[in-house]
């Protein structure tokens, strides 16, 4: 679950990381009122998920209430577009923050290092720009530290990193505490990534998190129901919402946009298991087609879930044929077959040509059910993919 900047900063404040003074606003009136009551220079930051909002015109500066209101009216409702986000993202709210006098900008993040099985801290004195760019042009400027979760964080780690990364002296006192708080957030809230870029040193000696990028592990969200709630309020990802709505795991469904130069994505896919799900969409590609989606019904799926998965995939109008690919382990073939028959017996689904491949646990029973309903299943994944691509082309 990716958080918006204002949500990330909410978590920052919970663990004691200093953030700029300011207010979160969803209307231009709120912005006017706030700036009127707090004279000074303010930054209006569009709250969107996409990167590059600055270049897209999503950040403005206001010196009085009137200007604040005008700019807020301009921003709220605007659709920001960037290279990474050609479709754009609508601005629904703003973060109004004090304009700080920047003496220096640093970068700090903590992520999971899968190979080391440890959290890894990255620090560089070159804050304010994309860290991948820094990694490319000046890799030695990025200092890393792997924290042992058994020992946890202790301030010497922050001191070592600050010295190694040559952070300006003004950071020295505050940095170990900021990093400690960031590690607390990372572990307690179960973050895949926490990033402060830039961590600003102001001219008056304060160290402040000017931006906040936080991505939480969906599996750990249950520990923080209030934070999990944020996701429901503004689901970052329509696919995730759709998956959860029918009882799948958040990341068990993903819809793929058409890509220039590739075949149109007209084949719906359903498989059991993430690996087979990926294999199935790859097989569609290998057969010269395009998978419209990835859908993993998980282990031990019941008929109802299969039925709803079918409905979800065919709700995408582009889907002209469906390939269901099941290799039973926990999942029982008879349950899947039942789900397919049920799905197609109702009037509430859009029916498309269907290819079923069913093997493994209870395959025999499943195949019997399908045979009774008049389906002729295919034997292999390759065969199924080829057949589905063919059917999709025929249906166009």
């Amino acid at each position, binding site marked *: 679950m990716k958080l918006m900047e204002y949500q990330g900063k909410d978590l920052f404040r919970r663990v004691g990381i200093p953030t700029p003074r300011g207010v979160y606003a969803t209307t231009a009136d709120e912005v006017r009122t706030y700036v009127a009551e707090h004279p000074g220079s303010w930054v209006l930051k569009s709250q969107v998920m996409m990167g590059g909002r600055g270049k897209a015109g999503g950040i403005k500066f206001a010196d009085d209430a009137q200007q604040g209101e005008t700019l807020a009216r301009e921003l709220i409702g605007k659709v920001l577009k960037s290279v990474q986000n050609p479709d754009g993202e609508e601005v629904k709210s703003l973060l109004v923050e004090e304009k700080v006098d920047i003496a220096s900008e640093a970068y700090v993040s903590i992520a999971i290092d899968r190979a080391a099985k440890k959290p890894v801290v990255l620090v560089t004195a070159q804050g304010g720009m994309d860290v991948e760019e820094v990694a490319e042009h000046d890799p030695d400027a990025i200092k890393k530290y792997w924290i042992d979760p058994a020992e946890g964080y202790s301030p010497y780690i922050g001191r070592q990193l600050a010295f190694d990364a040559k952070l300006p002296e003004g950071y020295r006192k505050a940095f170990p505490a900021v990093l400690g708080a960031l590690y607390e957030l990372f572990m307690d809230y179960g973050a895949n990534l926490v990033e402060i870029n830039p961590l600003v040193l102001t001219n008056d000696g304060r160290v402040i998190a000017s931006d906040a990028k936080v991505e939480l*592990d969906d599996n750990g969200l249950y520990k923080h129901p209030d934070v999990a709630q944020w996701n429901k309020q503004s689901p970052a990802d329509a696919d995730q919402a759709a998956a959860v709505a029918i009882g799948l795991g958040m990341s068990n469904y993903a819809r793929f946009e058409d890509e220039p130069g590739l075949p149109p994505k007209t084949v719906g896919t359903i498989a059991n298991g993430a690996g087979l799900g990926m294999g199935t969409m790859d097989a569609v590609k290998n057969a010269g087609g395009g998978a419209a989606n990835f859908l993993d019904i998980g282990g031990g799926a019941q008929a109802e879930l299969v039925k709803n998965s079918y409905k979800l995939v065919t709700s995408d109008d582009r889907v002209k044929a469906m390939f269901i690919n099941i290799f039973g382990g926990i999942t029982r073939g008879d349950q899947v077959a039942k789900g397919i028959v049920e799905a197609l017996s109702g009037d509430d689904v859009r029916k498309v040509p269907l290819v079923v491949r069913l093997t493994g646990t209870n395959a025999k029973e499943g195949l019997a059910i399908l045979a009774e309903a008049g389906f002729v299943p295919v034997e292999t994944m390759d065969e199924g993919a080829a057949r589905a691509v063919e059917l999709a082309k025929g249906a166009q």
Partner: protein
Amino acid sequence: MAIFLDKNSKVIVQGITGREGAFHTQRMLAYGTNIVGGVTPGKGGTTIESGQPVFNTVKDAVDATGATHSIIFVPPFAGADALWEAHAAGITLAVCITEGIPAHDMLRVVATTDGMRIIGGNCPGIISPGKSLVGIMPGHIFKEGNVGMISRSGTLTYEIVDGLTRAGFGQSTCVGIGGDPIIGTTFVDCLRAFASDPETQALVVAGEIGGSDEEDAAAFIKEHIPDKPVVGFIGGRSAPKGKRLGHAGAIISGNTGTPESKVKAFGEAGVPVADRPSDIPRLLAERLATATA
């Protein structure tokens, strides 16, 4: 020989009376796994229908049975607790089937369970065909033999193994390492064990997009087992960037986890990468032919 698991390994089931635990206990017993008991708090002193004793705690189970292996079927929030309990009781290999354990629980568990090998979580388990199955794989598709197999996915493993078996390639041990970002045993950990297993004469490494476990595996193969024939596979090669596909770990973010990087690494290690699972037996036969030539 096989790795990690043999015919005599004494196995307990954590969550033996739960729905999944009970179901797979019977399947494992049917396969011939030496299941000596199980654990369900509050049901200590009873036995399941097939006669295996149930204990309240892993410690009680280990004390009474001498079990060294455990397979875990518990809800995600109890996953870390189950692993720590196994470790404290002296279990040396724990297979964690549970899907959805928070990554940060696993970070802590991995850092504090020295001396216990963890397979998974979110994995299909491990099988040494003809000897023992500690997992949820459909045993009948496997066949005893000399090909070692490691995979991040469950069902894809079945797909590949099914093909191997049909093509006449039996398996020494197949390990499903799991699809989560933080898992107990990586490709490299398995490769290290396979490297010194004389029974294993060839390997299949079935990776997927996300992370760099495949790149690490390729580097290990290049340095330590250049002479053992290995065939690779990467699932999710047609996936666009930034989409998380089922496995919490299967995502291309930025420049890491791309199939291009993985295929390149395998290539540099002399490992051919199959475009589709059905190509694997052929590539394996070719590699074996070259190796013995």
